[in-house]
């Protein structure tokens, strides 16, 4: 089985070479047959990669220590779920997951792209094949997950204990679906540049892929943030760590792309810009892969460092980013400009959105790369953290968030800001009220906190106003309004949900940062502690034995106002003997949208334990908002418009399914 997987991987590499060259040549030579090769090859390539991945996952699940990567990253005593997720909890396996998702998207284009123009489809698949070929080669040459050991060791070296968590099952696959999903947008852009023309249907094709990728990336980042929050035991949800930034930059650029693609799709304007943005977004994904996989950065994500890998990925990076940008410089002038619009219009608002988002991306890029560049040039070591981003990213985001509710209310081509502002009066009043209530009645609220809460309420109410206005609130009878509401295009709901989710996330961030409280103290069993109206009694430390670890679990009872126990929180120190590593399992109790968070420190000589306790108001909204944003993207994907974009009603002219 293992060797079958290895062979399938090599075969998939061979197919990716064919996929890269044959359809490209076919599109140039005008050969229908050769262009038609792309589809079946992409699907077969995906099937083979999936087989290969399944073989590796089986090896992990069955603790086959004759496979080197299993031996290094698994242990027979691990629970089955962590054995399986361990498949991608290491460098080799995670790269295989990367190409699996890449070929998956390629296969999706092949299957659902039967209504694409033949040359566009051929070129898209060829570019997709080229990316695949580069990464297959990378895997086979520097990070082969199927390297064998003979004789096989009888026991493995265990998975990094920090990764032995359900988060590993969700976070990397979601994140990769996002990262790699943007490869489709990239391939479409490069294909358009190769052809030297952009079809009108181009944007209609690119937007759903952008939506899919953006949706998964949003989920991946949110999941990663929540995972870090509860697993690392520091109570933080975002650290401006270079690895986090590496995933955040494609998200920002992807958000910009999502919006500029709307303009292109509806008004055929901003073509060149959208194309460039699609290239940049995937380039940032590649940069993220490079930063994480090359060992340039040290973090929990850098599983193992090997200089040849870094150089190899750097070559891939240079080839694809440099190549696509050079092609862009050569060909962009051949693309025709699109429709006109007034600066104050829906289009103008979306351009403004792009301006802010790309600038914000640039500041994050500078903050992430500057320390690396400085070290390379002068050898000086600096770290750029939250204070830098607070000063640069923050001021860019605040005005952007403030103008978000205006965008959907402006008309295409020429809008009326005053009319939009009038419609937003109610939302504005609500925001102002929230701001005043926060500032005057909440203890310890700063001006910034009040402003933040107001901004969040503004976003949420703005999104609701958009829905109300579009269903004719106030001008028609409720019955008609309801019918109109139900008849609104799904994409309108998508926009409203995404903006509403953004507001919720902001509310969560402001709530946690401004009103959170914290206590560090050392406690003996039986002592109680009080934090923001919650009383906890420390019951003591209880040793327990897990499958591959031993732990000391500290139990705390939550005491209600009446003195009775309301529930329990427990936090544990786990010791994993194979890796000689200790981890902290934090204890969390959710009260409405807020959480009581507790983490254990060291044991003192006198039997006391250091305890760190946080009260985090509204913290769950941070991730809840992200889920709402994802729902918005999913809603948008269901819009009928995105399924048009091709001569579907004139079936006789469509090449009959190129897939057999």
């Amino acid at each position, binding site marked *: 089985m293992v060797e079958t997987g290895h062979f399938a991987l090599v075969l998939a590499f061979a197919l990716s070479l064919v996929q890269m060259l044959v359809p490209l040549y076919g599109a140039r030579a005008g050969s229908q047959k050769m262009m038609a090769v792309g589809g079946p090859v992409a699907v077969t390539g995906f099937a083979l990669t999936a087989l290969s991945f399944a073989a590796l996952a089986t090896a992990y699940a069955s603790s086959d220590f004759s496979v080197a990567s299993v031996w290094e990253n698994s242990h027979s005593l691990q629970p089955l779920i962590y054995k399986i997720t361990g498949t991608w909890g290491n460098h080799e396996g995670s790269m295989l997951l990367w190409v699996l998702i890449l070929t998956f998207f390629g296969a999706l284009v092949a299957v659902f792209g039967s209504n694409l123009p033949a040359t566009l489809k051929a070129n898209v698949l060829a570019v997709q094949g080229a990316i695949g070929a580069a990464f297959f080669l990378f895997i086979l040459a520097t990070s082969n997950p199927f390297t064998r050991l003979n004789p096989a060791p009888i026991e493995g070296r265990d998975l990094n204990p920090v990764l032995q968590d359900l988060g590993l099952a969700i976070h990397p696959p979601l994140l990769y679906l996002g990262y790699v999903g943007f490869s489709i947008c990239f391939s479409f852009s490069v294909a358009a540049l190769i052809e030297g023309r952009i079809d009108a249907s181009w944007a209609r094709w690119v937007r759903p892929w952008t939506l899919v990728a953006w949706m998964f990336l949003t989920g991946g980042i949110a999941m990663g943030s929540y995972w870090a929050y509860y697993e690392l035991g520091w109570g933080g949800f975002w650290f401006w760590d270079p690895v986090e930034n590496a995933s955040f930059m494609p998200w920002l650029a992807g958000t910009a792309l999502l919006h500029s693609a709307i303009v292109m799709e509806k008004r055929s304007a901003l073509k060149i810009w959208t194309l460039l943005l699609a290239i940049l977004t995937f380039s940032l994904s590649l940069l993220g892969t490079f930063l994480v996989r090359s060992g340039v950065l040290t973090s929990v994500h850098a599983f193992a460092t090997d200089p040849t890998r870094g150089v190899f990925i750097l070559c891939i990076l240079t080839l694809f980013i440099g190549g696509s940008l050079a092609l862009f410089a050569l060909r962009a002038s051949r693309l025709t400009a699109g429709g006109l619009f007034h600066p104050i219009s829906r289009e103008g608002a979306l351009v403004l959105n792009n301006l802010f988002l790309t600038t914000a991306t640039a500041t994050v890029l500078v903050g992430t790369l500057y320390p690396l560049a400085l070290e390379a040039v002068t050898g000086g070591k600096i770290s750029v953290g939250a204070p830098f981003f607070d000063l*640069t990213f923050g001021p860019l985001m605040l005005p952007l968030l403030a103008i978000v509710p205006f965008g959907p209310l402006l008309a295409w081509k020429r809008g009326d800001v005053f009319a939009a502002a009038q419609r937003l009066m109610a939302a504005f009043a609500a925001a102002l009220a929230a701001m005043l209530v926060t500032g005057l009645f909440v203890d310890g609220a700063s001006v910034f906190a009040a402003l933040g809460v107001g901004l969040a309420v503004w976003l949420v109410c703005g999104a609701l106003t958009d829905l109300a206005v579009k269903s004719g609130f106030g001008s028609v009878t409720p019955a008609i309004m309801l019918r109109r509401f139900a008849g609104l295009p799904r994409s309108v709901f998508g926009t409203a949900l995404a903006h509403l989710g953004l507001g919720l996330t902001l509310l969560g961030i402001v709530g946690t940062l401004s009103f959170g409280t914290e206590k*560090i103290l050392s406690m003996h069993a039986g002592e109680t502690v009080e934090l923001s109206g919650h009383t906890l009694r420390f019951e003591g430390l209880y040793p327990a034995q897990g499958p591959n670890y031993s732990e000391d679990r500290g139990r705390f009872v939550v005491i209600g106002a009446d003195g009775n126990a309301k529930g329990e929180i427990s936090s544990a120190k786990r010791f994993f003997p194979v890796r000689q590593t200790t981890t902290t399992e934090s204890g969390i109790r959710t009260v409405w949208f807020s959480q009581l968070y507790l983490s254990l420190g060291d044991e003192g000589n006198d039997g006391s334990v250091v305890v760190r306790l946080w009260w985090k108001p509204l913290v769950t909204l941070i991730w809840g908002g992200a889920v709402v944003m994802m729902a918005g993207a999913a809603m948008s994907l269901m819009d009928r418009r995105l399924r048009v974009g091709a001569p579907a009603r004139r079936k006789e002219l469509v090449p009959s399914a190129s897939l057999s």
Partner: protein
Amino acid sequence: MTRKQKRLSVIVAGLAFLGAATGLTFYALGQKASYFYMPGDLATATVQPGQRIRLGGLVEKGTIERGQGATVAFSVTDKQKSVKVTYTGILPDLFREEQGVITEGSFGPDGVFVADSVLAKHDERYMPKEVADGLKAKGVWQESKSE
């Protein structure tokens, strides 16, 4: 305004915006980035009390003292000089004697480094990169001694 003028004004506004953002970014880099030092570097560098820096090195053997509550004092050394550090909070799980750490904070007026964050190495297999590089440069740490 003609179409050309309109376009020009939009471009000028965009450039002004970008210029402001660039200026802000570099101002922030100068003000808010914290430099990394090892104890031996501090003799030559001028670090004001209160200036935020990152201090890295090994936790010196036998210097960890737990005070009352959750305050811990220890020394960070690069085997040439050592610096006393105090920290209030929960130390990372991998914090141990003779292991690499990076602390972030500033010097108090008494010359004791007050850290508000302590990072230990993430994994058994490597040291924080800055610490490893620094120790290598000082010839204290050899590749072969790494785990």
